[in-house]
C-alpha cells in the first residue's frame, strides 16, 4: 500500500514541476519583442558565410540577390526594383539612370550621402571593383550579367558608365538585362575586396568561400547573432540612409530575426502563435487562419488569390524523347489537364485560374498582361479539362489505339511517358498526379516519377537527358528583363545544348521565329511594334506547346501576423509598396513605416 502512495506522489510531483516550468518560461524575453521583427520561410539551416561576393552563403537575410528585387538589409544595390509597377527607385544611386541613344551605354549617378559602415563614402571605384572582382572569380553577378555588360567604368567619383555588351552588328545584346543588374547586384567596398583577395592569395574559389566576418556593409542592418536556431540582424544607427536624400529616417524594428525552422510545418505553427511577424511560406488554405481561427494574420489581398502571383510553374516536354516531338500529342495532353483541380488542390486557390487569366507567356500582373493582344490569341488559349477536345485532336491526327490495349500508339509504338518533379515538393507532386490522370483520360499512358531533388537537379539541367519526359520547373517571376527572360526560358534557342543549364528551355525546344523575336524585343522601343512581337511569341507558344503552365504562383509568399507590428503593405493602401516580405527590392520601404500595435 505504501508503495502505491509513493508512486502516485512521485507522479503528482513530476506533473506539478512540469506545469510550473512550462508556465514560468512563458514570459521570458531576451530580444525585446516590440523592437524585433520576426521572419520565417527564407533562411533554412545555419548561415554559412557573410560574403556578398561569394557563393553558397546560405544567408538569405543578408545575401539574397534576385531579379524581383535584392534583399537590401545589409548590402545594397544601386536601385530597388518594384514588381508591382516595374519601377526602379534609387538606393545607392542618385536620380534616374540614363541611356545613350543606341542603348550601348548607361550613366548612373551615385548618391553623395551614401557611406560604408566604416564611415567612408561610396564611390564609383567601389562599383567598378565589385564588377571586376565578380568577373575575376566568377560569382553570381558575373554568370548573370557578363554576357550583357562588357565593362563598368568610373567617370568621376560619383558617376559610373555601364557599357552594354554588343552583338557583332554593334547593337546591345540586351539592355533589359543591364537594367536588371541595377536592382540585382550588391555593391561592395573596394578596400574590403582588396583585403579579401589578398588574404586568399587571389584564389578564386577561396574568395568565393571566404567567411567574410569582417565584411563592410552599407545597409541599415548588420549581423548580430547567427547560429543553428536563428539569425539576428541589428539596426546600424549610423546608417547613411537617414539622410534626407534617401529615407530621412531609420527603419522601425531594431532587430531583424529569422528563426530557423526544420520544416514548413514548424514555421507555420510559429506564425500562428504570433512568434513570427512576416512569413514567406506556402500555407495551404491560408484564409482559414483568419476566417476559421480568427487569427490576426493577413496577406496582401483579402480575397483569393490572396497573393500577388508572378510566375507559373510549368511542365516541360522533353524534345529528346520522340513522342514529345509530336505537337498534337503535346497539345492534347495540355488540353486534357484539369488545371482548376491543380489550382484548388496544390495551390489551395492561391492562384488565379486559367479562366481568370488566360494562358500566355506573361505572368498575371497587369503590366505584363497589357503587353500582348488578348483577342488575337483568344482561340488558341485553353482552360483545361477538355477531354473531348483532346481525344478529338488525337483521333484526327491518327494517334489512336490500334492494338486494343486501351492505350494509344504513335508510329506503331505505345506512348509511355513519365511526369516528374522532385520528391517532397508536395504541390508539384499533386500537379503531376493530375497530369497523369489527364493522360489516363485520353488513353495516353503517363506515370509519375518523383526522384529526390539531388537527383532531379542533375538530370533536368542536362541537355541530353531522356529520363524525364514531362517535368516541372518554375520560370522567372518579375524583373526589368521580364517577360523577355521568361520567353527565353520557354523557347530560347540559345539555351539548347547548354550543359548544367539552370537558365531555361530545359525541354530543348527550338523555333527559328521565336529566336528572332527574342533578339528583337530588347532593342525595340516602339510600343505597338513591341506588342506585335509579344503577341506573335504567345501565338507560337500556344500553337507549339513546348511546355504548359500548371498554375500561377507568387515569387515570394507574403503573410503577416499583426500581433505586434502593423501597417504592413496592403493592396488597398495606395502606398505602392510591393508585398515582398518587407525586405526585397522596394518592399524594404515597409520597414520604415511599420507601427507597433500597442506602442
Amino acid at each position, binding site marked *: 500500500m505504501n508503495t502505491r502512495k509513493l508512486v502516485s506522489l512521485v507522479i503528482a510531483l513530476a506533473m506539478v514541476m512540469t506545469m510550473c516550468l*512550462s508556465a514560468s*518560461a512563458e514570459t521570458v524575453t531576451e530580444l525585446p519583442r516590440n523592437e524585433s521583427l520576426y521572419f520565417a520561410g527564407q533562411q533554412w539551416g545555419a548561415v554559412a558565410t557573410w560574403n556578398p561576393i561569394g557563393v553558397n552563403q546560405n544567408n538569405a537575410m543578408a545575401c539574397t540577390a534576385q531579379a524581383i528585387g535584392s534583399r537590401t538589409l545589409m548590402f545594397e544595390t544601386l536601385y530597388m526594383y518594384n514588381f508591382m509597377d516595374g519601377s526602379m527607385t534609387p538606393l545607392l544611386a542618385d536620380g534616374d539612370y540614363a541611356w545613350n541613344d543606341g542603348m550601348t551605354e548607361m550613366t548612373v549617378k551615385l548618391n553623395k550621402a551614401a557611406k560604408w559602415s566604416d564611415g567612408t563614402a561610396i564611390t564609383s571605384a567601389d562599383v567598378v571593383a565589385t564588377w571586376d572582382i565578380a568577373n575575376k572569380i566568377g560569382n553570381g553577378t558575373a554568370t548573370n550579367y557578363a554576357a550583357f555588360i562588357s565593362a563598368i567604368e568610373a567617370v568621376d567619383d560619383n558617376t559610373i558608365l555601364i557599357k552594354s555588351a554588343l552583338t557583332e552588328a554593334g547593337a546591345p545584346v540586351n539592355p533589359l538585362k543591364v537594367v536588371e543588374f541595377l536592382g540585382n547586384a550588391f555593391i561592395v567596398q573596394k578596400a574590403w575586396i582588396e583585403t579579401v583577395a589578398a588574404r586568399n592569395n587571389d584564389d578564386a574559389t577561396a574568395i568565393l568561400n571566404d567567411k567574410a566576418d569582417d565584411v563592410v556593409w552599407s545597409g541599415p542592418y548588420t549581423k548580430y547573432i547567427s547560429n543553428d536556431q536563428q539569425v539576428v540582424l541589428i539596426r546600424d544607427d549610423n546608417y547613411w540612409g537617414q539622410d534626407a536624400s534617401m529615407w530621412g529616417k531609420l527603419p522601425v524594428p531594431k532587430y531583424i530575426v529569422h528563426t530557423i525552422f526544420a520544416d514548413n510545418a514548424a514555421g507555420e505553427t510559429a506564425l500562428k502563435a504570433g512568434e513570427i511577424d512576416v512569413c514567406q511560406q506556402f500555407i495551404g488554405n491560408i484564409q482559414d487562419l483568419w476566417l476559421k481561427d480568427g487569427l490576426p494574420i493577413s496577406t496582401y489581398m483579402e480575397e483569393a488569390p490572396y497573393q500577388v502571383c508572378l510566375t507559373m510553374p510549368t511542365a516541360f516536354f522533353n524534345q529528346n524523347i520522340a513522342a514529345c516531338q509530336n505537337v498534337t500529342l503535346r497539345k492534347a495532353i495540355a488540353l486534357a489537364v484539369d488545371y482548376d483541380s491543380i489550382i484548388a488542390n496544390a495551390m489551395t486557390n492561391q492562384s488565379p485560374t486559367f479562366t481568370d487569366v488566360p494562358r500566355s507567356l506573361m505572368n498575371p500582373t497587369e503590366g505584363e498582361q497589357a503587353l500582348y493582344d488578348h483577342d488575337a490569341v483568344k482561340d488558341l488559349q485553353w482552360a483545361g479539362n477538355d477531354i473531348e477536345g483532346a481525344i478529338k485532336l488525337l483521333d484526327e491526327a491518327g494517334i489512336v489505339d490500334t492494338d486494343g490495349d486501351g492505350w494509344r500508339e504513335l508510329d506503331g509504338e505505345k506512348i509511355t511517358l513519365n511526369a516528374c518533379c522532385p520528391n517532397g515538393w508536395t504541390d508539384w507532386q499533386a500537379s503531376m498526379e493530375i497530369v497523369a490522370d489527364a493522360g489516363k483520360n485520353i488513353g495516353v499512358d503517363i506515370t509519375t516519377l518523383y526522384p529526390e531533388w539531388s537527383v532531379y537537379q542533375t538530370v533536368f539541367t542536362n541537355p541530353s537527358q531522356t529520363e524525364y519526359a514531362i517535368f516541372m520547373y518554375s520560370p522567372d517571376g518579375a524583373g526589368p528583363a521580364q517577360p523577355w527572360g521568361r520567353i527565353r526560358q520557354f523557347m530560347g534557342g540559345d539555351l539548347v545544348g547548354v550543359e548544367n543549364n539552370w537558365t531555361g528551355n530545359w525541354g530543348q525546344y527550338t523555333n527559328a521565329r521565336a529566336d528572332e523575336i527574342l533578339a528583337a524585343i530588347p532593342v525595340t522601343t516602339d510600343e505597338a511594334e513591341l506588342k506585335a512581337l509579344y503577341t506573335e511569341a504567345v501565338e507560337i507558344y500556344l500553337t507549339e506547346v513546348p511546355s504548359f503552365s500548371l498554375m500561377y504562383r507568387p515569387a515570394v509568399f507574403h503573410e503577416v501576423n499583426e500581433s505586434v507590428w502593423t501597417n504592413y503593405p496592403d493592396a488597398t493602401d495606395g502606398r505602392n509598396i510591393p508585398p515582398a516580405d518587407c525586405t526585397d527590392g522596394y518592399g524594404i520601404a515597409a520597414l520604415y513605416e511599420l507601427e507597433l500595435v500597442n506602442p
Partner: protein
Amino acid sequence: MKGYRKYFTKKVIWFAITFVVALALNFILPRLMPADPVAAITGRLVSGSSDATAAAKVYEHYQEEFGTNKPMLEQFWIYIKNLFSGNMGTSFSQYPRSVNEIISSAIWWTICLQLPAIIVGWLIGNLLGALAAYIRKGFDKVLMPLSLFLSSIPAFGMAVILLVFFAVNLKVAPVSGAYGFDMIPNLSWKFIGSVISHYQLPFWSIVLISIGGQAVGMRSMSIYELNADYVKYARFLGIKDRKIVGYVFRNAMLPQVTGLALSIGTMIGGALVAEIIFSYPGLGSVMYSAVTAADYPLISATTLIITIMVLIVTFLLDLVYALIDPRVKAAQFD
C-alpha cells in the same frame, strides 16, 4: 580478476571489429545512391553560363575538393584517415560548412534528450512492472493492457498526439525548437527555464512509450521469478516476504539491464522521428535534412555517431553487467 581481464580484452577486440564494419557500412551505403551531389553544387555555381568548358573545370575542382573522382577504396582510406584526425568532411548541402560543425552543435541536444528520457522511462517502467507483478489484481488488470497499448503507439504518433494536444490545443507547451524563439543562448535562469519547457514534450513522448515496453517486460520477468522454485522454497523456510521480494526483483532486474542497452539501440530510431516532429535541433533533424538533400557526408556522420553512441553504451553495460552477475561472465567463456 584475471577472468575479468580476459573478458574485458575479448570485449574490446570484439567492439573494435564491429566498429570497423559499421564504418564500412556507413561509408558505402550512402554512396550507392544515384545522385551526384558535386554536380549539384557546380550546377548552382555555373548556372546561366553557356561556357561548357568552364562548367567542367568547376566540376573537376569540386571533385578534387571532395575527392569523389578517386577510386572507392582510396576514398574510403581518406575517409578513415580524416575520421581519425577528427574530420568528418564537408557537407554538400550546407557547403562550405563542415560536418563537424553541424554535428557538434546538434549532438548535445540529442544526448541530453535521449539519455535521460530512456533512463527515466526505464526506471518508471520497471517500477510499475514490478509493482504490477507484486500487487496483481486490479492494478495489474489496468496497468498491463495500458502499458501494452502505450508500447504499441509509434514514437512519431505519440509525438504528434502530444504536440497537438498540449501545444496546439491547450497551449501549455511550446510547439517547436529547443528554446524560446526570442532567446539568445546564455546561462541565465530564464534561458534554462525556456530550454526545459521546450524539453517537456519530446521528453515525455519518448518516456511514455518506453515506460510501456519496460513495464511489460519487467512484469513478466518478475512473475516468472515469483513462481520460481527458490521462492517457493524460501517461503517454505519461512523467510520474510519482504526479503524474498528483494531477491526476486534483483534477479528479475538483471535481464532488464540488457533491456536498457537494447532499448538505447532501438529507441534511437523512434526518438529521431520524434525530434523531427518537434523540430528539435538534434541529430534526428540533421539526419532528416541530410536525407532530403542527399548530403552523404552528413548522413554518414549522423548514422556513424548514433552507432558509436550505441556501441559505447552497450559496451559499458556489458562490463557493468558482468560485474553484477558473474553468471554472464562464466557464460562468455563457454
